[in-house]
């Protein structure tokens, strides 16, 4: 939104072990758009596909929760969410 000062654009997951290093950048904008589109499709599918058996959850509900969470995650600008170091392994999750 135009009123927001700064929204996070990138989710960066980096894993570092002995002799192995992986950095996974993920565009939050793309992820948000993808989940938005998926939500619409799942909502349509929810009406069309008949429910069978004992269903504990609706996929569309989970997708909607994901959409809200991703949108909320982008509101804090640049921040480091997780940094864990154990037995020569280092995992870092940050928002930029």
């Amino acid at each position, binding site marked *: 939104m135009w009123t927001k000062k700064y929204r996070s654009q990138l989710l960066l997951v980096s894993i570092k072990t002995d002799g192995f290093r992986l950095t996974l950048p993920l565009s939050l904008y793309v992820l948000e758009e993808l989940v938005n589109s998926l939500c619409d499709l799942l909502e349509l599918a929810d009406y069309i596909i008949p429910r069978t058996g004992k269903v*504990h*959850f609706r996929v569309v*509900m989970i997708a909607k*929760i994901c959409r*809200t*969470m991703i949108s*909320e*995650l982008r*509101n*804090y600008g640049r*921040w*480091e*969410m*997780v*940094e*864990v*170091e*154990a037995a020569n392994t280092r995992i870092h999750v940050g928002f930029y």
Partner: protein
Amino acid sequence: MSDEKKRILEMIQEGKLTPAEGLELLGALEDIERTPKKMVKHNINKRYLRVRVYTDKAVKVNVNIPLALMKVASKFATTGLKYIPDEARKEMESKGIDLSQIDVEELVNMIEQGLVDEKLVDIDVDDPKEGKVRVEVYVD
């Protein structure tokens, strides 16, 4: 009965106050009690729930969760708890864990109102491998 009310009644008994003055004071006291206390709401957008695990050598775990995000997530917590399969729920209940008793939203509200400002968890452990390990959970 509150101490203030008792004191007013004693003063009437001792003749320091007239019954009319005493009634007036008691009325004023009740008005104050009826007025809800204002909770100071902190700006949760800049506050984080932080989990830290330190050893003598380094910081092992550093987790930062924005309180505003926790507040949004807490709305889904009750919804999410409904989707736990019955078998898992029964197993937890047999171990004395009743998920319906956990009010995540209330806990987040308490943190927002500044009622939980001190450290939520503060543990010191002596580990044979790592040495002294400190676990801290706090809102900053």
